[in-house]
């Protein structure tokens, strides 16, 4: 069965330090992976998706099929990056339909 694992519930770094939020997945099909972010008192929003290979707010994520990972990285963390981060996997659910399976999330705190 499909699964998304985010091994760290909490991650705390200092401003300017590199940050890496880990995400591993298990899926028999071709994976479509996403990172969503939820800032305090705001709705969830898409941060980035692997198919677009883009960098948003300085964050990047590379899909590693060999290691079944999609880790989120930023070389220099900022205080405004403090948020809950969710890794998500798009899973085929029959016909032409897909749904997202989310990890349990990592709460990132960037200290001044």
């Amino acid at each position, binding site marked *: 069965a499909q699964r998304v694992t985010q091994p760290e519930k909490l991650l705390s770094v200092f401003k300017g330090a590199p940050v890496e939020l880990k995400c591993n997945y298990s899926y028999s099909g071709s994976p479509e992976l996403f990172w969503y972010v939820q800032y305090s008192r705001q*709705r969830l929003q898409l941060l980035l998706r692997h198919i677009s290979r883009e960098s948003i707010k300085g964050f990047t994520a590379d899909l590693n099929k060999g290691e079944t990972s999609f880790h989120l990285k930023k070389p220099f963390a900022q205080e405004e990056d403090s948020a809950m981060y969710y890794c998500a996997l798009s899973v*085929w659910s029959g016909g032409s339909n*897909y*749904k997202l399976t*989310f990890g349990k999330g990592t709460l990132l705190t960037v200290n001044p």
Partner: protein
Amino acid sequence: DAGITQSPRHKVTETGTPVTLRCHQTENHRYMYWYRQDPGHGLRLIHYSYGVKDTDKGEVSDGYSVSRSKTEDFLLTLESATSSQTSVYFCAISETTPGYEQYFGPGTRLTVT
């Protein structure tokens, strides 16, 4: 923010009472989803819809039902609320899948006493 609203935004209800949450979109997106968010569990899919009157179960559908009679509205009903259904409920929409962004509503905080 994409045109998604949820109502009510907060609700306190008693065990055993029925509760209906509403998600309304103005984007004319085909897919709509209901999630619950709980500490330590992340987001879990309850039900989703891939068109008017077309719905399917997610991973935590027990105790919940949904209806979609119009493209813009997706209703989540707790037939007989229990304390374990105390949670924050999020609605999301997407234009198509896979690989496309889901847009989330602001959430509904439900407390069952």
